[in-house]
């Protein structure tokens, strides 16, 4: 062993002590390291004095340093045995915020994970061209069942229209799609009129240049879901030709998010001219109303009567698509508004900060107290938003009015009762330390209430205050009062 290697061993020993020190609880760490480094110095000196520096000596010193790990683990065990128990934290403002934060995280995670909720939130940002309607046969019981034929669209297109300036037809069917030599699948393909997207005003992502799109090959629009899941979100796929059924089709764009607001869950849209769409089978009709047509819309609905070549009357029903279903955020804000209106009806909004003496907490403490109340209310409002959205939309179909009502009821209920709880909780928190007052004790007798007060007395575990809540409010003692304790009470809380 060379004399040059001694600093190296010294550094290794110190490194061992440094590693071991991370096992020691933080408060004791600095002192612990000081003690061990001092002991190491003495150990090194003692071994160096007794014999020449050798591998044997260094091994002994390293063995000494390894003992530091056992010592550190011992201190860690002591700390674990004496760590503050949950009971000691109970009632503290930190625990209150912690639980509210947990509920908020749970709600937020739900909104990220539940597919129905994700779809609803995407919908709220989708835009539809004003005056766009979905036309169905009036006799159709279910809007998701196709009830229209292409021939009806052709009749409307041929005749002079005052009420509508454009029609589009689509029909959904399962078709095989070849993505490559060895890849493919069966998709829900909507064979649609070529003007469907421009009529409804839905923009496309990654659109191909117009001259390329105008080729004689039919155009194909992919849904974002399929594009991401089956094509790996590859933008290069736009412009390529896929085989849909037995026909080639050029991908001309990606329909953003879940912008599709019409019946039929399509994976892709094959845009063809009306003459190419064959007459067999029923589908759906989308139309765009003129200004006159829009004036006929009442409550999101418009009745349409049409006559065929034999003068037979046919009744249809148009459902407005641009009449925005109120999005989750709008319903939520309405729920909040109702909750604030209704709150004074179910609880007194006073914070009841009366005191027996003129002593008042400093403005800083009052500001912290108000800040704590504000934080609780904000957290409750956020919890209300995420919980209501999660519960309302996790299994209801998109655009379901049931979901809207459920969201309104849940957000109103959580906000209303949450804010009630926040106010009642605030009244029972010590103005000094914000801990909840505990140990309720019955004081006085109701029969002697003209001689002395009767009611409940609660105490702050930190020894700052007593809270007196009258059992029977009187003209001279109607609301709760705080009594700030001076230093003469300290002996009671010592230890």
């Amino acid at each position, binding site marked *: 062993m060379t004399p040059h290697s001694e600093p190296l061993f010294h550094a290794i020993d110190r490194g061992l002590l440094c590693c071991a020190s991370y096992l020691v609880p933080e408060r004791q760490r600095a002192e612990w390291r*000081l003690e061990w*480094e001092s002991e190491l110095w003495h150990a090194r000196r003692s071994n160096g004095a007794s014999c020449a520096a050798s591998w044997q000596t260094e091994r002994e010193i390293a063995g000494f340093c390894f003992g530091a790990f056992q*010592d550190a683990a011992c201190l860690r065990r002591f700390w674990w045995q004496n760590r503050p128990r949950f009971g000691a934290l109970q009632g503290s403002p930190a625990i209150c915020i912690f639980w509210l934060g947990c509920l908020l995280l749970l709600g937020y995670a739900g909104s990220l994970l539940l597919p129905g909720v994700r779809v609803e939130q995407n919908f709220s940002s989708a835009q539809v061209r004003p005056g766009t309607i979905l036309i169905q046969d009036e006799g159709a019981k279910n809007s998701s069942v196709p009830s229209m034929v292409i021939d009806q669209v052709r009749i409307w297109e041929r005749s002079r229209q005052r009420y509508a300036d454009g029609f589009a037809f689509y029909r959904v069917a399962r078709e095989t799609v070849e993505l490559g030599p060895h890849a493919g699948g069966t998709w829900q393909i909507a064979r649609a009129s070529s003007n469907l997207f421009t009529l409804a005003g839905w923009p496309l992502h990654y659109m191909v240049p117009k001259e390329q799109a105008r080729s004689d090959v039919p155009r194909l629009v992919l849904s974002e879901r399929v594009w991401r899941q089956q094509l790996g979100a590859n933008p290069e796929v736009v412009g390529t030709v896929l085989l849909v059924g037995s026909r080639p089709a050029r991908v001309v764009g990606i329909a953003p998010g879940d912008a599709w607001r019409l019946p039929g869950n399509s994976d892709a849209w094959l845009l063809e001219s009306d003459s190419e769409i064959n007459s067999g089978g029923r589908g759906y009709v989308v139309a765009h109303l003129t200004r006159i047509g829009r004036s006929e819309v009442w409550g999101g609905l418009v009745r349409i009567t049409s006559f065929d070549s034999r003068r037979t009357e046919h009744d249809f029903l148009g459902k407005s698509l641009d009449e925005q279903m109120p999005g989750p955020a709008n319903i939520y804000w309405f729920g909040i508004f109702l909750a604030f209106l209704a709150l004074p009806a179910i609880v007194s909004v006073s914070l009841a900060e009366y005191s027996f003496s003129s002593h008042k907490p400093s403005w800083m403490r009052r500001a912290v107290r108000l800040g704590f109340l504000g934080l609780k209310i904000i957290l409750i409002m956020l919890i209300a938003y995420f919980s209501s959205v999660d519960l309302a939309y996790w299994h209801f179909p998109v655009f379901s009015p049931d979901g809207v009502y459920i969201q309104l009821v849940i957000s109103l209920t959580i906000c209303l009762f949450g804010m009630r709880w926040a106010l009642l909780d605030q009244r029972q928190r010590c103005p000094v330390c914000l801990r909840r007052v505990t140990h309720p004790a019955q004081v006085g007798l109701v029969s002697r209430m003209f001689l002395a007060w009767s009611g409940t007395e609660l105490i702050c575990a930190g020894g700052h205050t007593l809270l007196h809540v009258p059992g029977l409010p009187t003209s001279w003692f109607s609301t709760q009062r705080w009594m700030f304790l001076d230093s003469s009470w300290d002996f009671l809380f010592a230890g």
Partner: protein
Amino acid sequence: MASVAKLSHTAAMILQAIDAGLIYGFSIMEMTGLPSGTVYPAMRRLERDKLICSRWERQSIADADQRPPRKYYKLTTTGAEALKASRNRYPLLERMIPTVEEKSL
């Protein structure tokens, strides 16, 4: 009279060593022949049970000797009582680690 805690042989040896005037960890190790991984945790337990107490040496003394300050340990009253009881239980304790006065005789 409060009951005196029964000590293990190792703890009794460490108490005896402290009583004998070996008042810091490394010297106790050398005297008892116990490894550092045994001596220091045992001292922590004894300190926790208030059988020994510790204090840091003054920095000026350590500076004068050109060495880092040491942490010294000494027996508390309870520790002295516990050691007395341990001596009855382990009669060879005093022979293994004689006190300074005994050594000088």
